């Protein structure tokens, strides 16, 4: 390194660093090409931006997402499979100042936890759901999920998902959109820098809604699972863009973020009556 380089380095400004919400002495352990690491990074950055790391609790579902439990630096627990929205209900109701989010995969949220997800959304619970949809059970080794695409092979659907036998993929944002209470439902991905930024903004909006007392928000993130899809990382990205996005189109499904919280809206209605 010569003198010129040394001078330039001093003039460099630090514009990006690893989120403090990850432990420095650990690695995540996710498979190559997996997007969980990116999503946790985005969550951590948003929590830091909002200045709420010291009052956040994460409720992990069961599955690959749990690999993050060791290395995030803030409060967390792991719920029984599918029950994250019930556990989050108990935490948030008894600690309204906390920022509470669940982090769940498709099997957890849409199969075993369908009742808990629907009911928490229907009650308009004031917490945030981060739903990572890769169309397959990851941790257990590639079984068919409620979001597995028609024709897509899984270890428990070796001939591929057959609608006659297995039905069709479930669209959770659209299903929750049938309910009155939810405030914000958006489907994102992390396949391009642009989509990573969109996902980050969606997480920020969902968390801000919660801090503003508005109620239930869910950010669905459609991701890859190269390991269980049986593809290279690049092929998996291509499959994501061609096939997964065709079934699960990205975009805002509902956004009442600009509205007042329901309880305040009712109060203003009362005033009008008076």
């Amino acid at each position, binding site marked *: 390194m010569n003198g010129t380089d040394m001078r330039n380095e001093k003039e460099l400004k630090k514009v990006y660093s690893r989120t*403090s*919400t990850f432990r420095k002495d650990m690695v995540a352990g996710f498979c190559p090409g997996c997007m969980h690491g990116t999503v946790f990074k985005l969550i951590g950055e948003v929590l830091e931006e909002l200045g709420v*790391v*010291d*009052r*956040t*609790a994460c*409720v992990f579902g069961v599955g690959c997402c*749990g*690999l993050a*439990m*060791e290395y*995030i*630096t*803030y*409060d*967390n*627990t*792991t*719920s*029984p499979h599918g*029950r994250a929205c*019930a*556990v*989050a*209900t*108990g*935490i*948030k*109701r*008894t*600690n309204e*100042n*906390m920022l509470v989010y669940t982090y769940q995969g498709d099997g957890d949220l849409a199969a075993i936890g369908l*009742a*808990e997800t*629907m*009911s928490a959304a229907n*009650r308009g619970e004031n917490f945030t759901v981060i739903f990572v949809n890769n169309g397959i059970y990851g941790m257990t080794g590639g079984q068919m999920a409620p979001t597995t695409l028609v024709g897509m092979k899984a270890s428990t659907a070796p001939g591929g998902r057959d609608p006659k036998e297995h039905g069709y993929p479930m669209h959770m944002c659209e299903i929750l959109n049938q309910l009155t209470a939810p405030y914000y439902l958006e489907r994102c991905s992390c396949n391009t820098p642009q989509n990573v930024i969109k996902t980050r903004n969606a997480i920020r909006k969902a968390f801000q809604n919660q801090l503003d007392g508005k109620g239930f928000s869910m950010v669905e993130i459609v991701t890859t699972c190269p390991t269980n899809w049986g593809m290279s990382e690049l092929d998996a990205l291509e499959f994501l863009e061609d096939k997964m996005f065709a079934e699960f189109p990205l975009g805002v499904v509902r956004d009442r973020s600009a509205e007042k919280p329901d309880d305040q809206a009712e109060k203003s209605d009362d005033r009008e009556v008076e």
Partner: protein
Amino acid sequence: MSEKRVFMKGCEAIAEAAVRSGCRFFAGYPITPQNEIPEYFARRLPEVGGHFVQGESELASVNMVYGAASTGTRAMTSSSSCGISLKSEGVSFCASARIPMVYCNISRGGPGIGSIQPSQQDYAQATRASGNGGFRMMVFAPGDVQEAVDMTYAAFDYAQRDRNPVLILGDGVLGTIMEPVVLPPMRSEEEVRRLKDELRDWALVGHDPKKEERAFILPGGWSTKRQEQTCINNAALYDSWVKDVQVETIGLEDAEVVVTGYGISGRIARSAVNKLRAEGARVGYIRPKTVSPFPYETFEKLDYSRVKAILDVEMSIPALMKLDVELAVKDRTRIETCLHAGGEIMSSREVEAAIRALLQGGRTE
């Protein structure tokens, strides 16, 4: 006595005792014969700044309690028999993560959907396997509404002391009967806050990672060594409960026949024992008030050169507490039974007849 007695239904008295002990969160799902517990909480908790949620299922309800109790809030759920089976998932997770919570089984006939009438068919589940993973809990078996109140009030303190679930094992009689009770004092809001703050370091209440350790409430994880250590720590806790045994006894000093039963059948049996002792019969009585820990020591101290037989009285077929009595008696005398099941409630006359048969050297059937 200057304390005010009030006339209350068992379920409602249990709920009021919980609130007075500092319970500020309840989630439950309807099932007979315990519906008055969630109904009472739904009205009562908002009055004290607490939260009631009617869950979409027993699974959801117990996991809401898992969440609420994870913040150090005193939290409770209740159900009956087949509903308790569903709660076993969340209870096991609470036992693994060492979360303090209280739940109540107003038990009914079984197995399966069984019958909605009173029964004691859940003893083995309550004391041995309330979920997967070989955990244990303190299990209180109240015999009347006053005991249900006192035990529920204390249950939250035991749960917090051990950071472990505690079960109140009642039955349909206890839940629906009305009796006069003296309610324990209402804990002040400052006291309830202090109790929650005691758990602050451990609880999911937010911690600044730059200054302090995060709360990490773990029902199991990736490390086999850590999970083994969890099991070792838990087993040590379970062993420590020998000091917490509660038992009621009558006439063991001269008894030739010892009658034993818990909860409502223990209470029915006591009527028969008292009647026969008044006649001069040498009948003794052991009623476990904690069925976990079980009062093995009380059975150990019996004079087996004199005790001709033990009469196990239960509303369960097959007899389930009898398994613990067998462990305690170790074949030193014979164990006979007086049983009902399916929602049939025994009479004190039946118990009396069984005792008379044993006193005369016969068998119960």
